Structures are given as structure tokens and as C-alpha cells.
């Protein structure tokens, strides 16, 4: 029995040691993006503030756990029945007002401290003023892809968000206005900020202030339908030069390459235009993503697969191969049409 109790407590302690161990290992601390989007690897101001707060809360709750669980472990050892035939009853204690008061007052004090710290941070993040140099992006969430519009720069992007690097001395954060075209989604890139829901008929806002360049991953964090799992996000934090170059490219109309005219003809006659826009052509559909700069992206279908010609061709042939239940229908094109339209789309840099 003693062995069993000891084993139980040890097992418990061991499993909870995993957590701080992981934190220590995982927080390679934020000098850039990681393939694992850990909330303990912040690279942007709001994420960093949350991280600091979380360490504070972890310390307090850790202390509470060690104290109370320690007491419990003590009780289990010290007050267990020794000897099967010991049938005398221990002293019956019915209560104690002082003790009850003590263990009411102490939690109240802890709550006060935690609440005040938390409230301060809520206001700091949620009500942060927007500096003049901030970049503005309007995010429109769809089932199952992301649309990014930069009103001041006059450009549209899809699924892969580019923002400029910020630095503490002259911050250039990005303020994102969140709109939904259909159901509730949620914008979450853990290394950059906490998540904010994207709610139809409501305007929400979130801001990021990244201090390290690179590509950060995230995904939709509110169940939005069949392909919620593959509504992924990529945020590219660019140096100012890279960002300016990217913006300039996005501002151009679509590349006009006569060698793929056959493919463009397929595109324009096969109902693709009903859903997609290609700037500078007759295609102005708004239901699906803007394809003007399709080849400037690393992935297709909001991160579902890499942007290669084979994947693109297969996607057009049958979207269900990669993203079963996505809202793009299979267009029933024959092989020749597929080759042509893929060749055309492959020129849209």
C-alpha cells in the first residue's frame, strides 16, 4: 500500500514535470519563426506580453499546486490506515471557522493580484493606439481561405500575408481589421499574437508587431465547416525592402503571356471567371481567391499543398484530392484543357 501511494504521487509529479521541461526546451525564445508555432516562442509585441503574463500566472499556479498537492501527499502517507484490523475511529473534527476563513481570504488575495495584472494587460493589448506608421490590412475570412486587402496600398493578397518588420524604436505594426464573408472563423498565428475571432456582421481588430523576419505559420481557430482543418495561414515578415518589392509586384495587373493564350481562353470560357478575379482581364469573380499573382505564393488552397504545377493541375482537376469538401467544384475539364489552363495560371507571377 505504501509503495502504491508513493508510485501514484511520483507518477503524478513526473507527468507534470514534463510541462516546465518542455517550456524550457521549446522556448528557444523567439529569435524567429519556428515550424512549431509555440505560444512560448513569441516574436511580436502582443505575443510577448502574453508570454510574460503567462510565466507570472504559471509561477503562482505552480506554487499553489506544489503546496496543495504536497499536503495531499503528506495526508495520504501520514493518515492511512495501518493494519487491517485497526477498527478504532479517529477523533471526529467537524470544522473550524478560523481555518475556513484563512483558506477563503488567501485565495481572495491571490485572485485580486491575478485580476489586476490581467486587467492591465487586457487594456494594454486591446486598446493599444494605432501609430501613424502602421500598415492596415483588411482580412476577409471565407470558407476555407483568407483574403487580405491593403486599402492604403490598393492591393489584394490571398492566404499568405506579407507585413513589414517592425522595431521597438520606430514601430511599424500591422493592424488587421477582421471581417467574415460567411461563418465565424478565427485568425491565429501563435508566435505573433493571440487569436481573434472573425465574426460575420461584426468588425474585430487585431494587431501584430513582429521583431524578426521570416515565415510564421498559423491557422483558422474556430470550426467553420468541413475543411476548417486546412484553412492554414502564413505570415511573411519582410524587411522593408522585401515588403516594398512584394507590394510593387502585387500592384501590377496580371502577366500577359501570349504563348498561353489557349489556357487563358479555357479559363475565360469554363466558368472560372464566375468565382475568380485576374486583374486586367475580364475575370472579376469575388467568391473564390484572386488569382492575379497566384505564382507569387508558396502554397495553394490556403496551405493545403505546395505550389507546384502538378499540384495545381490536380487541384483544378479534382479539388477533393487535397481538400475534400472545399467549395471549389471539379470543373470536369479534359486533359488538354487541364494542361492549357495550368500552363496559363503558371505564368501569373
Amino acid at each position: 500500500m505504501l509503495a502504491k501511494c508513493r508510485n501514484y504521487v511520483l507518477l503524478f509529479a513526473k507527468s507534470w514535470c514534463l510541462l516546465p521541461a518542455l517550456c524550457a526546451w521549446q522556448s528557444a525564445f523567439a529569435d524567429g519563426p519556428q515550424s512549431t508555432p509555440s505560444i512560448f516562442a513569441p516574436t511580436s509585441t502582443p505575443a510577448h506580453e502574453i508570454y510574460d503574463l503567462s510565466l507570472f500566472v504559471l509561477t503562482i499556479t505552480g506554487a499553489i499546486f506544489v503546496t496543495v498537492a504536497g499536503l495531499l501527499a503528506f495526508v495520504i502517507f501520514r493518515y492511512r490506515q495501518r493494519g487491517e484490523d485497526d477498527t478504532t475511529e479517529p477523533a471526529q473534527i467537524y470544522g473550524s471557522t478560523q481555518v475556513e476563513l484563512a483558506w477563503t481570504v488567501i485565495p481572495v488575495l491571490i485572485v485580486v493580484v491575478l485580476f489586476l495584472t490581467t486587467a492591465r494587460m487586457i487594456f494594454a493589448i486591446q486598446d493599444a493606439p494605432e501609430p501613424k506608421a502602421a500598415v492596415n490590412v483588411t482580412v476577409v475570412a471565407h470558407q476555407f481561405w483568407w483574403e487580405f486587402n491593403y486599402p492604403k496600398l490598393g492591393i489584394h493578397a490571398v492566404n499568405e500575408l506579407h507585413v513589414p518588420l517592425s522595431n521597438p524604436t520606430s514601430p511599424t505594426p500591422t493592424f488587421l481589421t477582421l471581417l467574415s464573408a460567411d461563418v465565424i472563423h478565427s485568425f491565429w498565428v501563435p508566435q505573433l499574437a493571440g487569436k481573434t475571432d472573425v465574426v460575420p456582421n461584426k468588425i474585430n481588430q487585431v494587431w501584430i508587431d513582429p521583431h524578426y523576419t521570416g515565415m510564421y505559420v498559423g491557422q483558422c481557430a474556430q470550426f467553420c465547416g468541413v475543411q476548417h482543418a486546412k484553412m492554414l495561414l502564413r505570415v511573411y515578415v519582410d524587411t522593408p525592402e522585401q515588403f516594398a518589392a512584394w507590394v510593387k509586384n502585387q500592384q501590377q495587373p496580371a502577366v500577359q503571356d501570349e504563348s498561353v493564350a489557349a489556357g487563358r481562353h479555357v479559363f475565360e470560357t469554363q466558368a472560372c471567371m464566375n468565382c475568380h478575379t485576374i486583374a486586367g482581364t475580364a475575370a472579376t469573380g469575388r467568391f473564390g481567391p484572386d488569382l492575379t499573382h497566384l505564382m507569387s505564393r508558396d502554397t495553394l488552397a490556403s496551405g493545403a499543398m505546395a505550389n507546384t504545377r502538378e499540384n495545381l493541375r490536380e487541384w483544378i482537376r479534382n479539388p477533393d484530392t487535397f481538400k475534400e469538401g472545399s467549395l471549389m467544384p471539379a470543373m470536369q475539364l479534359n486533359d488538354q484543357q487541364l494542361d492549357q489552363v495550368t500552363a496559363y495560371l503558371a505564368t501569373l507571377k
Partner: protein
Amino acid sequence: MADSTYPIPGSLETTPRRWSQADILEWLNSWVTTVDHKKLGILYMLYSIFFLLVGGAEAIAIRIQLIQPNMHFLSPQVFNRIFTMHGTTMVFLVGMTYIFGFANYLIPLMIGARDMAFPRLNALSFWLTFFGGLLLYYSFIGGSGLYGAGNAPDAMWWAYAPLTERAFSPGHAPDYWALSLIVTGFGTIGASVNVIATALCMRCKGMTLMRLPLLVWLNVVTSGLALITITPLTAAQVMLLIDRYLGGHFFDTQAGGSALIWAHFFWIFGHPEVYVLVLPTFAIASEVIPVFSRKAIFGYPAMVAASVAIAFVSLGVWAHHMFTIGMTSVGNAFFVLSTMLVGIPTSIKIFNWLATMWGGKIRFATPMLFCTAFVVQFLLAGLTGIMLSVAPWNWQLHNSYFVIAHFHYILVGAIVFNIFAGIYYWYPKVTGRMLSEKLGKWHFWLFLIGFHLTFTVMHIPGLMGMPRSIYTYEADRGWGTWNLIVSIGGFIQAIAVLVFAVNLIWSYFKGKEAGNDPWDAWTLEWSTPSPPPAYNFATDPVATSRRPLWDIKHPEDPDWKYE
């Protein structure tokens, strides 16, 4: 001798007999038409355990699909149905039913009454719940919908609008969800009314309200809370059906309706609901821990006050499920405060259980093993709850696997552990036989190890950015190993539950005879034979204190001297 109308297990029968077809039909009829609280309690528990197995099978399916990235065990559509049904089943068909299983069986016995206040309402409530559950599961086979076979609910157990509006869910999945829960909801209201009326109006002489066993108190508080918790869900579901079938616009964002208001209404139900689920768990712990520590519960009045406080405060915390939805900073701050405040009466209860064990002579029979694990696990769950109540941190943790780990720590680590404790504790009373201690210990240790492998480890992928409700995940996110461990833990828990099922069945026929009072306990149900006769008590008992049997067993030191 026991003259209950169900077959007495094994050798307790006085005359062995052969069962003719007429006997079997009569036996079935006695169960289907019963209004006896004991039989209905058993029916509720059998229903609950059955759906625990069904929901558990759904969980295993989920864990197989997620064991590694890019598995193809379940298609996205089927996965979404399975996890929605898993949640809906566990909350409504397992959680809400175990409550009334224990309450119905034990409350009349504990207060010295012959039956519940409204026996026929009791039966009606059970059968409403029963048929609601059947309707929910019929959805798997009823009709074909637009996305292939079946219409099982597939929009999460919260069924957020406008995803559940006609425009985005053209099949019948949300309809099955709403209708079946409306039906079970009526069953719950009926059962809650019955519990309150029984506890307030049917007590034996001498049992004042402050002498009620804590199980009864906690079930009264639960039932009162349930009355104002389930009804908002019913209202919201009616609104959803009006939108879907009568062209209403409650949640129709295109017509100016609000997606936000569904979230508010749902969580106004959803948060107090989890307290409805957990308070009867405290009830079981508050009966088991004193008996196995050989001491009276420490601070009875404080425990009663804390339970009532929890019920009240829990009505004001709902939007902590919505910290990311875009409320104002003041709104967020308010709900941070209210959520932290509800932690205070909850922690008082933990301290009182600890103090009950302090200075006792703790016997670690199977019920006590489960209750001890419950205390630690509940403490941890409360602490991760505090972490989640810190709104900015919540903006990272919300809808991630951290939240799933947190609430499963409560639902499994607190509630299921205590259900097991309660079954091991009262099975002798219900059947007249003890459950096997050996199998019980195997069940406990396997389940404990499996539980921690799954749900303690599960916090980690959450912290590493893994959201919930996803049928698969990218291979390069680093979540694969953790998911593997989590899934293995799930399989171990499944084995443990199988051991439990074997124990239940084997012990019914071969378990040791229990007698009236195998645990040397102190509440009135232990004064009846095991199983109790249909009328419960041959003569009306009189309660002299909170522990009537202690007074009888210890006439030199009765409780009423100290109360």
C-alpha cells in the same frame, strides 16, 4: 429478506427457478413500466454507462485519426460528425444521466422516504431522455443529406451559428441536434423538479435541511441550477429551428441578425451546465471521502455555502468562453474577475476534503483510490482553469488542445473518476454484492495511467499552437509525437473501462455478499437490506444528526452533541 422485483443475483435467491417466457415478459414489463425510484435510477445508470462506451468508441476513432499527421482513417466529414457526436453524447447522454441515476436511487434512501415526490414524472423524465438519445443517434442512419450518408450533427457540440443556419448546413444535422436535445431537455427539467420537491418535501422526521447528507444538498443545488441552465439552450435551439424552418432571422447575419447572440445564449447555458455536471461529482466525493477517512466531513456548513455560491457565481462567468470573440476590454475584464471568483468556493471545497482526510485513518479501497485521484486532478483542472481565465493568455489558449485537456481533466479526471468511485461504493447496496477489489485496482491503475498519458500530455500540443476540431494536422508542426502519446493513453483507458465492465458483470453473479453496510458508513441508505425492498424502510426512520447511523453505532459520542 429482500423482496425486490428484479432477479436477485446468484446465491442470494432462496429457491432456484427456471424462467419461462411469461416470466421474462413480466420481468421486462416491470422494468419498462416501473415508477420505482430505485429501478429508474438503475435505468439511468445503465443508459449512462452504455453511452459512456459509445462516446468512448467515438473518442477512440478520433484518436486513431489523429495519432499521426495526415491519417486517412476518417474522412473530414465523418470526423466532424464523430467529434460533434462525442461531445454531445458525453455531455447530455452520459453527464446528465449519471446525475439522475445517483440522485434518483439515493435521495429517497438518504432522507428516509419511500420514493421520489413524483414517481410517474420520474418515469416520464427518464423515457424522454431515453428517446431523445435515440433520436440523436438515429441521425446516423436517417436520410442522406447533401454530404453523403447520414445526418449526424457535425458542427461541434456548440453548433455555432451561422454555420448551423440553412445556408451553411443544408442537411438535417443541426435539426437532429436541436430536436433531440430539446426532448432530453424536457426530461432533465422533469427530473430536476422531482429532485427539489423530494428533498424539500419528503424528508423523514428529524432530518432538517442542515442534516441532509451532502449528496442530497449538492443534487438539490444542481437541479435548481439545471432549471435555469437547460432552458436557455432549449430557447436558443427553438430560435435556431425557427430560423431554419420558418424563415426567421435570429442568427441570419445577412438580414442583420447576430452570430454573437447565439454564442452568448449557448454559453449562458454552457457554462452553468458544466457545473451541473460536476456538482453531483462533489456529492459523491463528499460521501465517499468521509467514510473512507473514518471522519465526519470537515466544515459541513461551509460546504453547503460553497456549493450554493458556486451555483450563483457560475451564472455570471459564461463569456470566458468568448474572450476572443471581440467583446470590449471592460467586458473581458469583468468576465476575468467573475471567473476567478468562482474558483474561490471551489478551492474551499478542495481544502475541506483535504481537511476531512487529515487526522483520519484512510482506507484505500477502490472507491477511495478514485476519489483521491479526483482531488488531485480537480485541483490541477482548477489551476488550468485559472490560466484560461487570464484573458490575454486565453487569446492564445482558446480553441486549442490546451482547452480540450483542461475540460477533459474535469470531465474525465473529476467526473468519470467519481462516477467510478460512486459505482464501487454503492454497487453493493444496489445489487447485494461487492465489486471485485482486485479487478477494481486493475481498473484504477490502468485508467489512471491512461488518463494522464492522454490528458496531461495533451496540454503540450495546445501550448504549441495546435487548434481543436481539426481532422488532421501538418506533419512539420511538431505535434505528431505528442498526439501519438495521447492516443496510446486513450487505448489504455479503453482497456481499463473494459476491465470495469467485466467487473460489473462478473461481480453481479459471483461477487462477495455485501450485507447491509459493508463499508461501515453512516447515512440512512446503509440501514436497509442490500438491495433494499421496494418500500425502502419498514418503519419511518428518525434522523438525529447528519450521520444517523454514527449516532446508533456510537451512542457514547453522538454527532448531535457537536452540531
